[in-house]
């Protein structure tokens, strides 16, 4: 169906052309030389004016515009590069400062620690010394007491035994012999 219509269209089209060309003496108006000179004349004038105005006025402006834009963009890129370098430098500086201050802080900390440790050691030494002295004193006292107590006990024991004997037997015994016996006994006790 579609094919038929298309064929019909072309046939009518062809017939139409044929009648047109038959009816008109010149056929295509393009081949009618009546206005050729006029067309050439006006073509030269319009195209000439167009060419001259474009060449002298408009195209230099556009090219200028493009050039300035290009140079401006290049300039801006250069500036941006410079600023980037500067900022890189500043970042480096800043990092250096941070590193320095970190080191400083570390050294301060170490100093303070040593100081405190020193202080603590000193105080501890002093305290140790005091304690040792006190301990020595107490030990001395203790040993004194120990030494003294043996004699005292012997004496008391001799006296007590003399009294006991007096009560039991009713007569006095030589105190020196009693103390000798007590001493012997205490020695035996000690040995045991």
């Amino acid at each position: 169906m579609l094919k038929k219509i298309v064929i019909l269209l072309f046939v009518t089209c062809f017939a139409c052309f044929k009648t047109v060309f038959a009816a008109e003496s010149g056929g295509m108006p393009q081949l009618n030389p009546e206005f050729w000179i006029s067309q050439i004349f006006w073509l030269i004038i319009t195209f000439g004016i167009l060419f001259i105005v474009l060449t002298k006025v408009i195209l230099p402006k556009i090219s200028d515009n493009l050039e300035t834009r290009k140079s401006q963009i290049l300039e801006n890129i250069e500036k941006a590069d410079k600023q980037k370098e500067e900022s890189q430098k500043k970042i480096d500086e800043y990092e250096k400062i941070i590193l320095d201050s970190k080191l400083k802080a570390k050294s301060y900390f170490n100093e303070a620690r040593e100081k405190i440790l020193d202080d603590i050691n000193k105080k501890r030494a002093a305290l140790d010394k005091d304690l040792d002295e006190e301990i020595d004193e107490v030990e001395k006292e203790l040993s004194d007491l120990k030494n003294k107590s043996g004699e005292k006990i012997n004496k008391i024991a001799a006296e007590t035994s003399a009294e006991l004997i007096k009560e039991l037997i009713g007569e006095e015994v030589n105190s020196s012999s009693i103390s000798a016996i007590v001493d012997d006994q205490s020695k035996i006790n000690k040995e045991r």
Partner: protein
Amino acid sequence: MASNPMYQFNVYRIGPEIKLGSVDISFTNASLFMVISSLAILIIFNLGAKKKTLIPDKIQLLSELSYSFVAKMISDTAGSKAKPYFSFIFSLFMFVLFCNMFGMIPYAFTVTSHIIVTFMLAAFIFVGVTIIGFMKHGLGYLKLFVPSGVPMVLLPLIVVIEIISYLSRPISLSVRLFANMMAGHTMMKVFGGFVISLGIVGGWLPLSFSVALTGLEILVAFLQAYVFAILTCIYLNDALNLHH
């Protein structure tokens, strides 16, 4: 006679008859559309060139893009030596493009659908390119007709063919543009006529053809202007850089 598809190509006088001596140089509808196209180009590009902002607005972008488009086309096909001819090729491309595009407006006249206009442009290009070639290379320009690496036996034949192809350049250049524009507009007129004659029942098919053809013709209008300009560049390239 309005249903005649060739009627749209008729040239008629607008205003009084102007005579220069014995030749008729009256202002016609063709002249009118040449003036309109030129004025439109000048106005658009003047607007685009007037403002000098770093970030272009729409019309400035349009003019700058066309500028760089044509500049790239020339440097790609004809090299850096063709730079002095940039403004001519730019004007040529814009003139043909605007004439083609104005022809796409209904009831408008298509300047480039007339063989005499396209032939004048092509002949001017041909003569100009030949003069440039002889000025650059002297008689050495004739080497263009003698390709290198051709056997001696074939040489006479090749030279004849080369000369014929060189001489037919203006004809092929002009006929290509003229025939494309004329055929496209005639076809659109024919299909438009079918819409009327087939009426509301059968008119939809030619109408859809018409719509598709309009798009195609706009493409052809741009393409033919581009081809015209790029062929000019290629001819210029032959004249500037003798390759043979």
